[in-house]
Each structure stands twice: as structure tokens, then as C-alpha cells.
């Protein structure tokens, strides 16, 4: 190396940086970008998180806090174990929030502990951490909890605002005595009934039975619009999922083929975990395909699986498992369907290249 070069600014920077390890992707410009993206998602989720306490009582705030504490403990513990610097990229906050939003309001304190620890360590960090996990961590944690505590995970509480809830025991007694209906909108539709305008309105605002953070379609939708406006997510995946669910809600109507009413179509889109799943979990960068065509395929698959689970499944819901199943095929879709590199062969439709 020439002597004059050793004192140059570029050589000094190189000497400073050459021993640093390149962190895992996503590499945008700096780590601040990841933090900004995650921060925007947290901001979008916040109204639904806060409103969940109003609907189901202060206890759910406790569940959120336990989930967050577990996420930080799991991340710090794992970083210590593998001797890696701790990354405060806020992705674990989203995992904790989403998992808790998917819990029943009657969940005991150890549900978020088990679910979040599994999500952060096994589903995410085992596979290389942020950007490499093929499953949505929150949904992976939820799937484990359903496997371990199936009955408790499907208990439905009803909101009793402000800051109260009707426990699943009271709901089931009331249903048995036929005093008030304890059926969620999805259960009503699966039984072949049509939702009234009041029931639809309640479901849209969140005054219906369900899991902690999935009931208020309005707030979830507003958060989604905020994310689209900030260009954090593309509306394509949620819209394809909603369109698929809506079309099949019409086709598979209660009276036979093509007998669905607008109440069925809207009811299926705003009820259950459809909003939460389609807007916040099916748009996760790491566990969804990297090309637009791949995203379309992924979203169509999610929509069709939701229809399969809701109309022919064992329970009334299936959004989270539909996303999980398609997550499993995300790396495969990315492997076979990738963007043509500039100068690689002849131009192709949509600039796509199918690998053989």
C-alpha cells in the first residue's frame, strides 16, 4: 500500500470498520429504518390495544405488560446465550402485542409468558432472528398455546365496558338458558343465521365477543390505513384476502350456492381475526414473499384457507392458521418466483423469473 494512502480518510474508515460484523438483514440504510418501521406498526396497533382494556377490563393491560416483559427477557437472555449484542429494534414489542391481542381476555398470566418466549426464541431467533424467520412469531406462539391449552384458548369473553368483561362461564350459562346470545358473529353465520344491522355495527366497533385485540374492526382498519399512508405496508395483501373471503361468503351462502347476502360478506370480513390477521400479520416482511406476484399468491392462499376453515373447519375461525400455513410456503415461493436481474436473459412478463 502506498504511504500516502495510509493517512487517507477512506483508509481510516476502513480500518475502523473492518473488524465489525455485518448485521443480519433487512439492510435499508441503517438500523434506524427498522426501528421507524416497527415504531409505526406499534403506533397503528396502539388504539386497538388501549381500547381492548376499555372493552375487556384492566386485566388485559396486565397481559400486555407480561407479554412485553417476557419479550424483552427472552431477547436479552438469548442475546446473552449466543453472545450477541442486544438489538432494540422493537420487533419483539410487535410480537408481544400481536400475540397478546390473539389471546382470550380470560387468559391466565402464564399464557403470554409461554407464547411470547416460544415466539421470540424458537420461532424467530432459532432461525437467525429478524428477517430470517419463516413463520410469523406471534402466530407461532399462539399455535403452541392452542396445542397446549386448547379449551382455554377458545373461551369467549364478552365486553362489559367501561373496563369490565363478562367471563366465559357467565356467557355459557346465559347461552344455555337462552337469556342472551353468547354466539360470536362468526358462530351466528356458521349456524346459518344472518347478522342484524345492530350486530354488524357492534362487530365493526368492537362490542362483541372475541379475543383481546381482534374485536374492533374500526380501530384495526384505521391503523391499517395509517400504515398504508406511511407506506409501511401495501394494501394489496389485505385487499386480496378480504376480496377472497367476501366472494366465497357470497358463494357459500346459508341457503345454498350464491345465496350469501351483503351481511354475510361484510360479517365475514369484519369479524373474528380477519382484520387483525390480514392487515398486521399477513403483511409481516420476513414471513411473506418478496415479489408482488408471490404476495398475490400468498394472499389468495390465505383467503382460500380462511374460507376452508370457517365453512368446513372444526371451529368458526381460522385466520391465524391460514397465515401460518402460507408462511410455511413463503421461502418456497421466493425460491421459485423471483425478480429477473437486470440484464438476465430476455425481458419477462412482470419482470418475473421462474426458477427450475
Amino acid at each position, binding site marked *: 500500500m502506498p504511504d500516502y494512502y495510509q493517512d487517507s480518510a477512506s483508509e481510516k474508515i476502513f480500518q475502523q470498520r473492518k473488524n465489525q460484523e455485518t448485521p*443480519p438483514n433487512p439492510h435499508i440504510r441503517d438500523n434506524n429504518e427498522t426501528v421507524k418501521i416497527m415504531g409505526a406498526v406499534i403506533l397503528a396497533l396502539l388504539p386497538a390495544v388501549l381500547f381492548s382494556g376499555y372493552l375487556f377490563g384492566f386485566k388485559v393491560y396486565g397481559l400486555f405488560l407480561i407479554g412485553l416483559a417476557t419479550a424483552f427477557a427472552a431477547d436479552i437472555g438469548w442475546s446473552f446465550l*449466543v453472545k450477541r449484542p442486544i438489538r432494540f429494534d422493537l420487533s419483539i414489542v410487535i410480537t408481544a402485542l400481536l400475540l397478546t391481542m390473539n389471546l382470550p381476555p380470560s387468559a391466565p398470566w402464564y399464557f403470554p409468558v409461554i407464547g411470547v418466549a416460544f415466539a421470540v426464541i*424458537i*420461532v424467530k431467533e*432459532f*432461525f*437467525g*432472528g429478524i428477517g*430470517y424467520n*419463516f*413463520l410469523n412469531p406471534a402466530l*407461532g406462539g399462539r*399455535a*403452541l398455546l*392452542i*396445542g397446549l391449552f*386448547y379449551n382455554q384458548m377458545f373461551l369467549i369473553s364478552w365486553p362489559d365496558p367501561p373496563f369490565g368483561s363478562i367471563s366465559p362461564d357467565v356467557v355459557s350459562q346465559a347461552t344455555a338458558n337462552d337469556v342472551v346470545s353468547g354466539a360470536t358473529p362468526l358462530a351466528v353465520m356458521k349456524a346459518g343465521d344472518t347478522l342484524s344491522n345492530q350486530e354488524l355495527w357492534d362487530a365493526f366497533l368492537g362490542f362483541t365477543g372475541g379475543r383481546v385485540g381482534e374485536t374492533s374492526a374500526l380501530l384495526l382498519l384505521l391503523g391499517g390505513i395509517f400504515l398504508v399512508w406511511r407506506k409501511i405496508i401495501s394494501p394489496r395483501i389485505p385487499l386480496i384476502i378480504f376480496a377472497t373471503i367476501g366472494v366465497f361468503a357470497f358463494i357459500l351462502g346459508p341457503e345454498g350456492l350464491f345465496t350469501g347476502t351483503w351481511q354475510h360478506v361484510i360479517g365475514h370480513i369484519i369479524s373474528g381475526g380477519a382484520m387483525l390477521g390480514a392487515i398486521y400479520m399477513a403483511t409481516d416482511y420476513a414471513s411473506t414473499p418478496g415479489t408482488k406476484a408471490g404476495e398475490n399468491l400468498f394472499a389468495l392462499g390465505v383467503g382460500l384457507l380462511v374460507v*376452508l*376453515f370457517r365453512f*368446513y*373447519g*372444526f*371451529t368458526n375461525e*381460522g385466520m391465524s*392458521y391460514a397465515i*401460518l*400455513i402460507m*408462511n*410455511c*410456503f*413463503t*421461502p*418456497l*415461493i*421466493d*425460491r*421459485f418466483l423471483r425478480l429477473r436481474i437486470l440484464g438476465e436473459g430476455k425481458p419477462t412478463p412482470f419482470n418475473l423469473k421462474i*426458477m*427450475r
Partner: protein
Amino acid sequence: MTIANRLVLFLMIILTNYVCQQLAPLVGKKMPNVTTRVCYLASIIGAAYFISGTLFFAVMHLQLVYGNVVVTNLVTAALIALIVTGGVLAIVPGKKHYLTDHLIKTTFISVPILTLATVTQFPYHQYMLHLATAAGMYLLFAFALSGVRTRVEIAAIPKLLQGLPLDIVTLFLFYLSFSFLNGVFFNYLF
């Protein structure tokens, strides 16, 4: 399916992926990539397994049993699997491009193992449903695992987890993810 049946399926899925991993394309040589090869091989094994299982069910249905059925049923299943594997390999297109001698041997081993480990255990009244589920599970999991392995290759995985441990964790996560399909086909989840 019992847990033992599933574990055999998982091991065969891992075997299918590992044998193809040995045939990664070399720079400058036109060879199929590992994922494509896994999908091709898994399709052959899955199809041969399904046909073998169906023929075994036909044999049971027609009561073509002999001798000590506890043993002879296994012999029958293994013979059917070997014959079907040979037949499928004879007619399948593109085998010169995708298969090697090693992969053909793997097919002749995998199909009888899958058949022996599962078909004699399926309940008679729901036999075809169980067979279709097992074949579908083998196929989908083998495809998906080959995709996940391509992603894991570029990730910073702790040494302790690299390879077989992570593949088993991956299959466990697949199993969790697909568990809701039990509700559609069998009206139970776990």
C-alpha cells in the same frame, strides 16, 4: 396417525431433503437446483406411496390374505411398494435430468418404509382419508422444508442448532401450523 407414524414421515421428509442436498449444482454446469430436485423426488415418492397404499387397501378389501396375517400383511405391503416404485420410476418423465442412481435407490427405500410404517396402522373405516392425509403431509412438508432450508443457509444460526436439530424444529412448526386442517378432515384438532 400415531406419533410413531408421524415420526417416520418426518424422517423420510428429512431423508428426501438430505439426499438432494448432496447434489447441489456446480458453477458452470447446467443442473437442477436442490429445491426443484426435492420437489421432483418427493412427488415420485409421494405418488408411489399413495398408489401402494391404495393397492394394499384393495388387497385387504378383497380379503386376499394368507398365512400369519400379522407378518404376511407387512410382506404384502412391502412387495406392493417395491413393484409400484419400479412402475412409477419406469413411466415418470424427466428422470434422466433429475434423478441419479443414488436418488433411485432412495426412492426404492423410502416408499416401502413409508408404506410399512403407516398403511398397516390406519383404521379400516377411514383408511383412504388417512392415506391421502399422510401422502399430502409428506409432499407438502417435503416441499416446504426444502424452501426453508434455502433461507436457513444464509442465516446466522447458532452452531448447536445447525442441520438436523433445526430441521426437526422446522417440521414441528409445520406440524403446529397445519394442525387446523385436522378439523376439516377429521373433526378434531389434536
